[in-house]
């Protein structure tokens, strides 16, 4: 504990909350800037590229639907990795990471569901079907909401951490189900066409805006995740300081 400098010298230094806050303070403005530039380029590509000869204008929904769906799964995977960090290393920052990722994941899953529905109506002729892909993503959305509700219901974050981590890991079984549901089951949803064996089956005209938007959404997620982690560390500091203040006040009354 003699080393009080805030420089990050090794990967394990990131586990120190004070050092994490110092690093986040430096990185967040840059990450936000890169995100803004990527969205500017991505949105410009979204609306300047040609429409599909079959789908027409609705192909442009893909540029937000696919990145949102991808992030809904990546976010849960990050939460599962954090849950392992909580259970194996018992590190509080791992719990902070998992806890603040849940609302972000819920938001991206919500966007994926709504844009999918708005794409389904003109292309499939229906807003919603209870098939394997759509249902498993809907379950993912409910799991995010459940985890948020659980975390809010628990007063002590350190006690909530381990139970929450176990629940996250149990729920992780849903992620491969979502990914492979289109191959395993007969669904209305198309099979994978970007990340698949044999390379993307999407024309470069559509692939370019899709990839830029996917990177933009991913950067947005990491920027928000880092900011929310920093805020959660501050929230826990505030709670710790209030406890100290209450204890000191009680001691003052006794003496």
């Amino acid at each position, binding site marked *: *504990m003699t080393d*009080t400098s805030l420089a990050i010298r090794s990967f394990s230094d990131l586990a120190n909350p*004070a050092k994490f806050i110092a690093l986040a303070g430096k990185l967040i403005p840059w990450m936000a800037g890169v995100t803004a530039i990527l969205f500017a380029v991505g949105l410009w590509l979204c609306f300047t590229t040609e429409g599909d000869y079959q789908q*027409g*204008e*609705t192909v*442009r*929904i893909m540029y*937000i*639907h696919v990145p*949102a769906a991808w992030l809904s799964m990546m976010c849960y995977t990050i939460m599962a990795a954090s849950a392992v960090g909580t259970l194996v290393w018992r590190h509080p920052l791992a719990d902070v990471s998992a806890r603040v990722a849940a*609302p*972000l994941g819920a*938001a991206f899953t*919500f*966007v994926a569901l*709504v*844009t999918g529905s*708005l*794409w389904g*109506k*003109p292309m499939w002729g229906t807003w919603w079907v209870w098939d394997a892909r759509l249902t498993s993503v809907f379950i993912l959305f409910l799991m995010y909401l459940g985890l948020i509700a659980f975390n809010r219901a628990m007063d002590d974050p350190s006690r909530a951490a381990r139970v929450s981590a176990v629940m996250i890991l149990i729920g992780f079984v849903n992620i491969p189900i979502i990914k492979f549901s289109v191959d395993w089951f007969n669904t209305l949803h198309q099979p994978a066409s970007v990340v698949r064996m044999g390379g993307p089956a999407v024309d470069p005209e559509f692939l370019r805006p899709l990839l830029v938007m996917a990177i933009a959404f991913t950067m*947005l997620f990491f920027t*928000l995740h880092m*900011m*929310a982690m*920093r*805020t959660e560390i*501050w*929230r826990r*500091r*505030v709670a*710790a*300081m*209030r406890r*100290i*203040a209450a204890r*000191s*006040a009680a001691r*003052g009354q006794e003496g």
Partner: protein
Amino acid sequence: MELAHNEGYVLASYAITLVAMIVIIGWVLLDSRGRQRELKRLEETGIRRRSARTAATGEAATEKTIDA
């Protein structure tokens, strides 16, 4: 006519996504500002966390931490 009809779905998708993103970005920013303000106010009253006390030198390490 069919094309104009479909453009509505595209615009609705982008609009809803925009609103959802504004909500989470706004929530993250407001939460960050709020906690920062609370922390500052608590520090101003002289309350120090144990780790902050040991890291600091001299008088901050004393047992009495609240001035008010």
